[in-house]
């Protein structure tokens, strides 16, 4: 009833190619953006900003990066966290060694360095695919972290290989409060998510999808494999690199290379699998599921402990949290193997017909 596109006529090619062709979607997105930019900063507490929203957005950005590579171009990667580390360490070195470096440019620089490294580790994708490529990117994961802790120059010869992010200042304004950090992260993520969405709808995105669906066929219709795949690697790593720099600068502050370990790569991979492979929305949903659900469970447990005075030992509740989380993952994968984004899509189809499904 509310979600009907009847009566919305597309009278020009521009309208037909619009990013959100349905009016209700445009309104919905506008409401979400207004809520995120205007309402949330007024209502959220510092805890919500710095422990929930900021990591959620940063991991969503990394998930978008991996989605570009795995979801759109079909190249499985287990090295996302390593590319994030490249972004963080590169941004740190740009800030450290280039005088008067603007921090946003340092983030972009981190992304570009990650993209270059991504291209190098993407080269094997021209010859191998599937699980074998995953193993090659696994090598990237180990090699990059090893290299960052081995070569002292990257961490400015810190004895423990740790970097401490410099102050984030843009045009003289220092981003120190949780709310201001959140707004900065949100702006960057919003712009980059929009760019990714448009990229996926462009020529490039269609070429990626053609390669994903069948690379021989894609080659036959005139898509050059090498530039297409390497471009996917570059852009994906760029996203990961920026996310990594944000992770260091606006979230943790001080990081060791170990913060970007294989575990994080896996978590980002699970985000896109649970959220939905090959959708931008899925990156956000997956990030919310993987990053926020354990926190919600743990909050629930401590709430119960404080109110009902559960006399269960902490070791049991901690393990229970993990078990419930694992159970939920299995539940969602059985109910909808194509991810939460697909669930939303089905919901939309149903909404179109509701309440007269005939």
């Amino acid at each position, binding site marked *: 009833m509310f979600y009907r596109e009847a009566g919305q006529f597309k009278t020009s090619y521009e309208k037909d190619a619009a990013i959100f062709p349905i009016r209700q979607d445009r309104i919905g997105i506008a409401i979400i953006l207004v809520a995120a930019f205007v309402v949330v900063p007024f209502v959220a507490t*510092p*805890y919500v900003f*710095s*422990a*929930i929203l900021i*990591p959620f957005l940063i991991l969503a950005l990394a998930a978008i990066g991996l989605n570009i590579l795995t979801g759109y171009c079909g190249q499985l990667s287990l090295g996302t966290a390593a590319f994030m580390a490249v972004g963080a360490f590169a941004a740190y070195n740009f800030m*450290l060694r280039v005088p008067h470096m603007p921090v946003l440019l340092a983030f972009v620089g981190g992304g570009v360095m990650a993209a270059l490294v991504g291209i190098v580790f993407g080269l094997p994708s021209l010859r191998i695919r599937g699980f074998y490529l995953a193993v090659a990117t696994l090598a990237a994961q*180990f090699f990059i972290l*090893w290299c960052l*802790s081995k070569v002292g120059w990257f961490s*400015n010869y810190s*004895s*423990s*290989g*740790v970097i*401490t992010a*410099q*102050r984030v200042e843009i045009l003289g304004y220092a981003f*120190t409060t949780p709310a201001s950090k959140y707004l900065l992260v949100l702006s960057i993520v919003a712009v980059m998510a929009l760019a990714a969405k448009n990229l996926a709808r462009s020529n490039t995105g269609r070429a990626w999808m053609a390669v994903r669906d069948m690379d021989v066929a894609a080659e036959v219709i005139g898509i050059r494999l090498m530039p297409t795949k390497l471009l996917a690697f570059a852009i994906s790593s760029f996203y990961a690199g920026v996310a990594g720099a944000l992770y260091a600068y606006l*979230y*943790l*502050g*001080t*990081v*060791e*290379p*170990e*913060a970007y370990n294989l*575990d994080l790569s896996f978590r980002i991979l699970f985000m896109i699998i649970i959220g939905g492979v090959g959708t931008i929305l899925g990156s956000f949903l997956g990030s919310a599921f993987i*990053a926020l659900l*354990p*926190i919600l469970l*743990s*909050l629930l447990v*401590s709430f119960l402990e*404080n*109110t009902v005075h559960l006399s269960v*030992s*902490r*070791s049991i*509740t*901690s*393990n229970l*949290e*993990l078990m419930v989380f694992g159970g939920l993952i299995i539940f969602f994968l059985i109910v909808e193997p194509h991810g939460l984004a697909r669930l939303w899509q089905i919901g939309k189809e149903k909404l179109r017909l509701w309440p007269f499904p005939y």
Partner: protein
Amino acid sequence: MKAMKSALLGLTMLGVAATAVAQSEQFIPILSYRVGPYAAGGSGYFGGAIDYFNLINATGGINGVKIAYEECETEYNASRGVECYERLKKVKGGATTVEPLSTGIAYGLLDRVGTDKIPMTTFGYGSANAADGRVFPWVYPIGTSYWSQAAAMISYLGQQAGGMDKLKGKKVVDLYHDSAFGKEPLPVFDALAAKYGFELIKIPVAHPGNTQESQWLQIRQARPDYVILWGWGVMNPTALKAAAKVGFPRDKVLGVWWAGSEEDVIPAGDAAKGYVTAAFSAPGTNFPVMQDISKKLYASGKGNLEDSSRQGSIYHTRGVTYGIIIVEAIRKAQEKYGKGKVMTPEQVRWGLENLNLTEARIKELGAGGMFPPIKTSCVDHEGSGMVRFQQWDGKGFKPLTPFMSGDKEMVRKMVDESAAKYAAEKKITARDCSKES
């Protein structure tokens, strides 16, 4: 509906009552980890801390002030740890001090504790340069840092060799966990190798370190006099088994304190017999304070350890030591800011910075010999730098040396340099300690 309303009302009232009570209590968040690969250490350590807090509460609190605590599971994961810290820093009147027992989490909190003005302790880990209180006013690596420990280890080896001058020409292998943790002591080892003229061979082991054949082959070929085992987790028993396989004497293997708990040696079985490790607190159930914990808590089923036979184990006594030091810091703060009052984080910070635990005071607390005397100051947040060495005999750790320290002056010089570099990088102006009271 009515029932639900009254239930809700009851809940809110309960909440109000809880906060009202909490204000007369000193709140300490416990960022514990009881699941995952490091659960054994986490449950023992935080179990020990909670046991001591409960003991204090059972015996009247700190001059009447009871300790309130709340646990949050970090899974030893930096982002979960940051979430726990953010969640607990404001509850029950606010966190007064925090101890994450994880290098990654400690780094994630480093900037935050400064802005929130909550002192953080990093007991026996973390970055050594935080011992410089002028640059790190909110971080307290109380006891010993990795650098002090590394220096003490070399002093111990010197003792074994019959004098520091006898180290000349000896070969020492540093078999280390290839991470920030394992790399931290390398500058100290390098400097000491240059000073005493022994040959240092550095052999990294990639995480998690469950295969070490090639490393031990390398060690066998090098024929070192000693092997320093700077390991963590599964790497430790693996190293001991590999040492047994190549026939390297275990009493020449010297472990870091994170390689020196029951959890590290028991899986290696007989291969661990004779193995020597460093420790910053002594294990055992004979200390009066451990006896109290056993009698007042475990006898009535109030102990925090699931397995009460773990009482007096290395991690448990380490946790108790942490508890003692925090409680003493709060006591010290109360001496200045009013006995029987709940201290603010700033006041606890002052207490941590002016801690003076003499041999006599430690004995009074029923922990004589459990940990070395500690005296902190504005400049020196470490306060001791002493470790002792212990040997695993197959059943328990037997002490080999009293608490001892290494070349403290050299370590302190390196701390100052490193902290100054950090301050320059972060554009921090160091505090002037002559103006602190």
